């Protein structure tokens, strides 16, 4: 087996894994605070991809502004979705079921909306930076280096924000004990609203970074959504550190499966690991950790 090939694939796995981590951290953020699974997370990702496509190809934006616009629109869409669809169900009986049904509904709606409005043709987005870096005999596309950099900056920045800022403190307090947070003056409904927006923005950011590699289409959100669920199980539901570790792990597993088996087998490997975790370590690396 060619060692260089393995190393190259591992690097690809890390790049892809960093985006899995970004998508999964949005999912785990929602779970940690609102105790619900967002089945429309992948569609918010998809919207991010389309906003980038249109802003680059129709409006002629620089990729930087296209990414910023996509993140902003996803943030606003997240706020709207929380307020219009989830807020009315909060604090009602059967929240665990109603939130799943509601977000699944949003997911189906958005997929079909995209299909009807923007068509089924896959749309390609150019690389933000052309060219490759030659390093120690490896060839790495600048696009992939950019992805890693963005992931690192966003994850570290987000972590510091959650740890230090006034909103971050409110978010963690609400996640750990909502009633106690309320009597200390925290409006949990507002925390939920903004958390949802941030989660959507993270999904859209991942979509914009991956759009040049995976093409924009109405169903582009399904694989990352599924992968994010796997990541969240590997890392422990609700754990931010777990989402990051799980993301990188899944990325590497898929890449290695591509090398040793074939690319058709990479999802089989990913789901085999998921099943193994569900059987042997259902709480994931970090258990159901609190924020």
């Amino acid at each position, binding site marked *: 087996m060619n060692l260089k090939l393995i190393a190259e694939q591992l690097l690809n796995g890390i790049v892809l894994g960093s985006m899995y981590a970004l998508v999964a951290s949005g999912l785990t953020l929602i779970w940690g605070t609102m105790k619900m699974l967002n089945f429309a997370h992948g569609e918010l990702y998809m919207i991010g991809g389309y906003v980038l496509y249109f802003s680059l190809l129709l409006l002629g934006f620089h990729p930087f502004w296209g990414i910023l616009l996509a993140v902003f629109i996803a943030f606003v869409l997240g706020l709207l979705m929380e307020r219009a669809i989830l807020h009315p169900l909060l604090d009602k009986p059967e929240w665990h079921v109603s939130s799943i049904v509601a977000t699944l509904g949003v997911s189906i709606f958005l997929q079909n909306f995209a299909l009807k409005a923007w068509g089924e043709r896959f749309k390609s987005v150019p690389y933000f930076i052309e060219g490759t870096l030659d390093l120690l005999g490896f060839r790495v596309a600048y696009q992939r280096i950019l992805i890693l950099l963005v992931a690192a900056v966003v994850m570290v920045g987000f972590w510091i924000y959650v740890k230090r800022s006034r909103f971050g403190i409110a978010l963690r307090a609400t996640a750990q004990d909502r*009633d106690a947070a309320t009597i200390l003056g925290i409006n949990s409904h507002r925390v939920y609203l903004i958390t949802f927006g941030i989660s959507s923005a993270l999904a859209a950011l991942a979509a914009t970074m991956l759009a040049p590699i995976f093409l924009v289409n109405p169903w582009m959100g399904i694989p990352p959504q599924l992968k994010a669920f796997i990541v969240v199980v590997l890392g422990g539901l609700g754990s931010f550190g777990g989402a990051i570790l799980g993301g990188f792990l899944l990325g590497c597993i898929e890449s290695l499966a591509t090398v040793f088996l074939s690319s058709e087998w990479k999802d089989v490997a990913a789901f085999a690991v998921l099943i193994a975790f569900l059987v042997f370590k259902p709480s994931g690396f970090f258990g159901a950790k609190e924020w």
Partner: protein
Amino acid sequence: MMLEIKNIDVFYGDAQALWDVSLAVEEKEIVTMLGANGAGKSTTLRAVSGLLKLNKGSISFAGVRLDRIKPHQIILRGISHVPEGRRLFPSMTVMENLMVGAYVSSAWKGRASSANEVMEIFPVLKERRNQLAGTLSGGEQQMCAIARAMVSHPNFLLLDEPSLGLAPVIVERIFDVIQRINQRGVTILLVEQNAHTALQIAHRGYVIESGRVVTEGPASRLLQDEHIKQAYLGL
């Protein structure tokens, strides 16, 4: 009258927990609410904090109807609640718990100095400032919960069973602190099962049984009351 609870009924779903409960606390007083487990003591405090809705009656504080404002805005009126079972944020450090206590905008700016100030009351918290709240001992957790409630500089404190599960010597220390806080001008409504200790520091008391107030009066008189002696003081 600082806090006035008037004829309130409270339900948990279909089950009625409070029946026509009335209670008043004057400025600078320590008033205690005694009763067995499940009598409705915590329910009353949760109603004051807006965590439970009233089916009947009213709760006013310094002339403002608390039952008409949102639960998270009640602390802005100067009321701080130390809930039953401490309810610290277990995965946050002691310092971070105090920061949540300073969340309200009026307290956020001076949070560092306020936190240091309340840690003067409980020096042990200073040593434990970077420890996760979930790993503290029961007594330390109670101190942290009281400190967290004090960071926002309240003038009214709702204390729910601060002695629960603590060794007598720790209980004594905590009640000492409660008295000191009161001497600084903070009015206190103290819910307790530990009737004897509570009546030692309280000015007045209410006894609640099965969701109804059955007796009220000055602490000195309640200490002599035959029914209370039998039911709550074990004499």
